[in-house]
């Protein structure tokens, strides 16, 4: 019987203690949960729990501070990079990160994002791009794909009227203050492992004072997209990643794309 192998010496995977036992409020299958865990696993593996300060956004992940078992500070919508700047400058020995959605980072907070990156603040920015405003009911975001239906684009995003989906990661990568920029996903276990590697490098480099490290994670919002969680992951692989192509954009201060 297999049940008798469930003993401590055979343990290969369990939830990190850097996630609290609080039940996350996210919809079933939401990518935020997987991204929270990937990030906390890396902080755990690097032994940085006491040295880490995260800045939570406004958006579905507004309660991230309830789930991540580290010091956190909530910021006003889009202002996480400004708050992170202050915290990192006051406590340069800490690992400081922001965790922000696309509405937060690429719409209302565009100015904070760009100027933080341009100043090269020594922080890690984790940018969760689910191509929609999840929290407020699935409105169109700057990152919504062309033709994609949302609550505020019921006939599909019309690029003639509202412009093209914004690739803000490619944009900030051009700034001298940005040390690294890459795009990841969490729709397969292999992708989660890749993301963890990028997060680890971002943590190391931002702590070494290299500049801003920017990690985008394309994530599903199955509620906003009006699909089942499994369909949403498939749709992401087929559509979102065609436009938001995963991989490195800037590595160690040099553009690679």
């Amino acid at each position, binding site marked *: 019987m297999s049940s008798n192998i469930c003993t401590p010496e055979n343990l290969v995977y369990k939830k990190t203690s850097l996630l609290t036992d609080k039940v996350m409020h996210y919809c*079933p299958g939401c990518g935020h949960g997987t991204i929270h865990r990937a990030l906390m696993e890396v902080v755990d593996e690097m032994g940085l729990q006491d040295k880490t300060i995260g800045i939570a956004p406004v958006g579905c992940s507004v309660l991230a501070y309830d789930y991540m078992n580290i010091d956190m500070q909530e910021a006003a919508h889009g202002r996480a990079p400004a708050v992170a700047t202050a915290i990192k400058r006051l406590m340069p020995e800490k690992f400081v990160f922001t965790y922000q959605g696309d509405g937060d980072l690429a719409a209302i907070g565009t100015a904070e994002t760009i100027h933080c990156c341009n100043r090269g603040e020594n922080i890690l920015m984790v940018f969760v791009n689910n191509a929609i405003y999840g929290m407020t009911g699935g409105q169109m975001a700057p990152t919504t794909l062309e033709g994609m239906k949302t609550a505020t684009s019921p006939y599909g995003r019309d690029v003639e009227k509202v412009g093209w989906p914004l690739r803000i990661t490619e944009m900030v990568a051009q700034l001298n203050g940005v040390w690294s920029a890459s795009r990841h996903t969490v729709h397969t276990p292999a992708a*989660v492992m890749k993301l963890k590697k990028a997060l680890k490098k971002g943590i190391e480099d931002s702590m070494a004072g290299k500049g801003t490290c920017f990690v985008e994670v394309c994530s599903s919002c199955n509620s906003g997209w009006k699909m089942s969680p499994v369909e949403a992951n498939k749709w992401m692989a087929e559509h979102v990643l065609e436009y938001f192509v995963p991989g490195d954009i800037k590595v160690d201060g040099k553009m690679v794309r």
Partner: protein
Amino acid sequence: MAKFKGSIVVDKERCKGCGICVSICPNKTLGMSKEVNGKGYNFAVMVAEETCVGCASCGRICPDGVITVYRAKED
């Protein structure tokens, strides 16, 4: 070559029944329960226990972190 035998434990009251673990398990070990948990969700269960190799893919992807994975060498 040594073969591995795996097993998982799902915290069924915290499972939200999203089905993502079922969709990514390389060995089709997992399925959804017929009954529901306290929140009304069908939860993930092993439907073909003997096929699990303890690769931990399900644990790594579960959005709610409710899967614990075990693995032992088969002799």
